[in-house]
């Protein structure tokens, strides 16, 4: 095992330099952002520590949150603390702000990044559901240029993402929550801080006159990777949001997920509670809409 204190570490100062290093077998290293996944994996012997790491900390191209047209552009090096504190994220991507606020605890949020969370590709990565409900894309780059991949396609399967060995995640392009829509994020862990999710879900929905006009639903930790409930979304669209609709949505959610028993929870509980979460979302939105109509 490589000792952490004897590992080679490169500190490129531009994205181009970093991509140069990544392009070649002999200079390539493991990209290190906040290190909150990597350091723990290495120290615990889950993953052997590599010979070389490439620090992304000094890359200006990976920083910043900007609103362009109807899209929020978030650099891959943005920390959870920056996400939750950003007024743009709070106002235009509230589910993402809420998700970032549930990652680990303050210390982890100060170091951990959105790029690391996505690239780590854990089924329990908390940002994933909040990202995929936006219908947005991730932009990755290699020496030969950029690629833009829809987030839903980017998460390919268990711990697998559409990223080549010579590429880095540069930024996320996330369409804002349109006027009249609402977003919610809900995470269930054993405790409020420092708990990896048993399950988490995010939702973006527009209800008008008791009718669901558009809806995006995503659930995490119930399948090899985050899932969008696209069939349910299609079924819900255009329906009146009443108790019958909600009950059927719960039923469909439960049959759409495929959770497992693991150290954090049981398949049976996850199945049930995924339905409950969707019920909770629809209840809350429906009641909010009803209140506004009154």
């Amino acid at each position, binding site marked *: 095992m490589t000792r952490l204190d004897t590992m080679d570490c490169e500190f490129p100062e531009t994205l181009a330099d970093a991509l140069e290093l990544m392009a070649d077998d002999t200079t390539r290293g493991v990209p290190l952002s906040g290190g909150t996944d990597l350091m723990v994996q290495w120290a615990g012997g889950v993953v052997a520590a590599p010979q070389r790491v490439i620090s992304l900390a000094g890359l200006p191209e990976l920083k910043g949150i900007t609103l362009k047209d109807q899209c929020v552009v978030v650099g891959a090096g943005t920390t959870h603390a920056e996400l939750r504190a950003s007024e743009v994220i709070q106002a235009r991507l509230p589910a993402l702000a809420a998700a970032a606020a549930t990652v680990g*605890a303050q210390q982890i949020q100060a170091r951990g990044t959105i790029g690391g969370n996505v690239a780590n590709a854990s089924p329990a990565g908390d940002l994933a559901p909040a990202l995929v409900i936006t219908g947005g894309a991730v932009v990755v780059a290699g020496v030969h240029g950029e690629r833009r991949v829809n987030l839903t396609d980017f998460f390919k399967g268990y711990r697998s993402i559409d990223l080549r060995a010579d590429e880095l995640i540069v930024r996320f392009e996330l369409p804002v929550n349109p006027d009249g829509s609402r977003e919610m994020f809900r995470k*269930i862990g*054993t405790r*409020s*801080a420092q708990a990896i999710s*048993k399950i988490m879900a995010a939702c973006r929905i527009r209800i008008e006159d008791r009718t669901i006009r558009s809806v995006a639903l995503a659930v995490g930790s119930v399948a090899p990777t985050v899932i969008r409930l696209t069939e349910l979304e299609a079924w819900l669209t255009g329906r009146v949001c009443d108790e019958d609709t909600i009950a059927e949505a719960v039923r469909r959610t439960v049959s759409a997920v495929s959770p497992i028993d693991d*150290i954090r929870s049981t398949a049976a509980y996850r199945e049930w509670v995924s339905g409950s979460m969707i019920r909770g979302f629809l209840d809350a939105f429906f009641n909010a809409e009803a209140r506004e109509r009154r």
Partner: protein
Amino acid sequence: MQTKDFKVVNKSVTKIDAMSLALGKPSYVADFKPEDTLYVKMLWSPHAHARITSIDISAAEKMPGVAGVLYHGNVPRVPHCTAGQGYPEPSPYDTFMFDTKVRYVGDRVAAVAAESPEIAEAAVKAIKVEYELLEPVLSIDAALKEGAPIIHDEPDCSIPIPVPYEPEKNIVARLGMEAGDFDAGMAAADFTFDHDYETPYAQHCPMETYVAMAQMDARDRLVITSSTQVPFHTRRLLALTLQIPVRRIRVIKPRIGGAFGSKQEFLLEDVIGMFALRTRRTVFWQFDRQENFRTGRTRHPIRFRIRSGVKKDGAITAMGMDAVSNTGAYGGHGLTVIGCCGSKVLPLYHCDNIHFDTKVVYTNLPVGGAYRGFGATQAFFAVEQQMDMMAEAIGMDPIAFRQRNHIKVGESSPVFAALGEGKEGVPMTIGSCGLGECITQGADAIDWSRYTPHTEKTGRYRRGLGMCCLMQGSSVPLIDMGSAHIKMNDDGSFNLHIGATDLGTGSDTILGQIAAEQLGVGIDKMIVYSSDTDMTPFDVGAYASSTTYLSGEATRKAAEKVFNQICQVGAEMLDLPVEEVVSEDEEIRAKDGSGSVSYADIALYSLYEKNQFQIQDTASHITHKSPPPFAAHFVEIEVDTFTGHVKLLKYVATVDCGTAINPKLAEGQTEGGVMNGISYALTEEYLFDEKGKMTNASLQHYHIFSLRDKPEMKTILVPSYEDTGPFGAKSVSEICINGAAPAIGNAIYNAIGVRMYSFPFTRERVWNAMREQGFARKS
């Protein structure tokens, strides 16, 4: 001598070690490690039950930097127990430094001492072991099954006291008692109840894991510096297992980074002691967190059947407890923990017809030990929920039901006389009890008037109120002994030497306060030194809620004797008979105002001037009672019926600990204990694979309740005065852990009408109970 006019006790003086700890001064075992130290790593058993058929240490021994390897083939085989209890211990001698058999995942196989932890680790990997796998016994039922594999089949295990011990049946102990006529009591009831409950494993999770260091001093004596609650028992057990005389051993306890009962155990010292004897080097060993979980001691999981009967007027006609405790692979504390399920719980309520029948069994699972609350924690979970069921059946408020039935001053219970520590108990009449007031004040603080039945609650989020009453003991009567030595210095200051063991609780401070109060000086005049087998007199150690009550009274008695000497010398100096002088403001004064001498004058006089002698004395104390502290805990929760999440909103803990010697520390003990209890009730859980290996042996996966979830908490000290305790004090630090599980269990029922018979109350378990008990959503 009831006096509430205290000068030093009942005051929140600053902990005497607070500043040095805050400044990070060398305090803990690891801080004292010299450069030239050997490090120990253990090869732990990967199997729950196996025989070692061959072991080859030669490759490990030859590795550069390896100073030695220990295994069953090169150490003496001495049956002993690892529980640090009285002598002879009420625990079986079923443990060996190393054995040819392993009995749980995390049992010892072989140890390496090397120049660095890395070398030791590599050498451990180089040890080749072959095992014959045996069928593991992974539950109470499996242990008791006809023809079950025998976990302790070695011929040389035994128990050193005359109590039942049947290792061939995997039975470590049996204990029971009867009072009145239980069956008749059940028959006389208007309502009877019969329910099963189960309490889980848990680990103490102190910040500082198990750690100890061994050194040979210049005169070839073995000096052990250990994070232990029981330095004197450790010395005795070391002499036994290393087969050297007690006089060659010194055990020192420095500051401890938490213990909570886990370090009332002898888990490291024999190995490092043996290495030190063989290498003449300093040997250091500290568990990592995984070792602390797997090999460290745990709370005994216990299965209860509680049968009880109640009359419509609220009289409890019968109370029966059948219990089986799982002690894991070794039997330490097995008998005494199950005993406390009865002795610290059943006396709380009036009942003439009592049945108590228990067993303790071996399994191939982690080993039970002492854990704050010690059996009472487990039993109160069952009994206090059943109390609520009885109250509900007769339509009485749970508070009124308890007020009617709880034990009061001047009353006794047949349980006190029947159940002791490995022998009969000691009859006792309650001399102080503030429980009634605890209940009243706690009910006010949580606003119990809002209590409505669960049938009236609707919606997704449902709130519930719950409460429970508790008692514990204060030391083990006629068994535990503490002692103190005090001497006076030139400037009128005093050295207080006590065997008692401060494990972060603040006992050095409060024993200093007790001595200062009795001597008539400020706490700044006390120099306290504790827990060093060469320098301090004997004390059993920190357990059984004994330090304040037992060691405190020894300290007070020693101080009283020294005080009398001071008066004598002062009177001599003033040329007055001793009856004519009084002590005030660190002076001895003539009652008639004709003169005075300061304590410093007296010290100098006695040391240098005339009739010289050292003003000093010593006292020991055993107790004839174990006066219970009492407590009432109240909790308000909110259950999310969509997720099964139990959210704590408010927790009120009231406690009668007699006189609180240091109210801030008593509150700190209570709040810490409550958080510890909440954590046990809500989030902590040992998970095992099908082969008996703990799968979540890390703080990442074993979840301690986090401060983020901490509810609003209120602690109310309700004073009483226990005449037999130092300045009216009783114990405080164990009782507070017992309340969370039953109070929250009762609150869950009050919120959603679902009764929880096991815990932790995780979302999964609450949801399962909701399903099983047919919880129906009403909006």
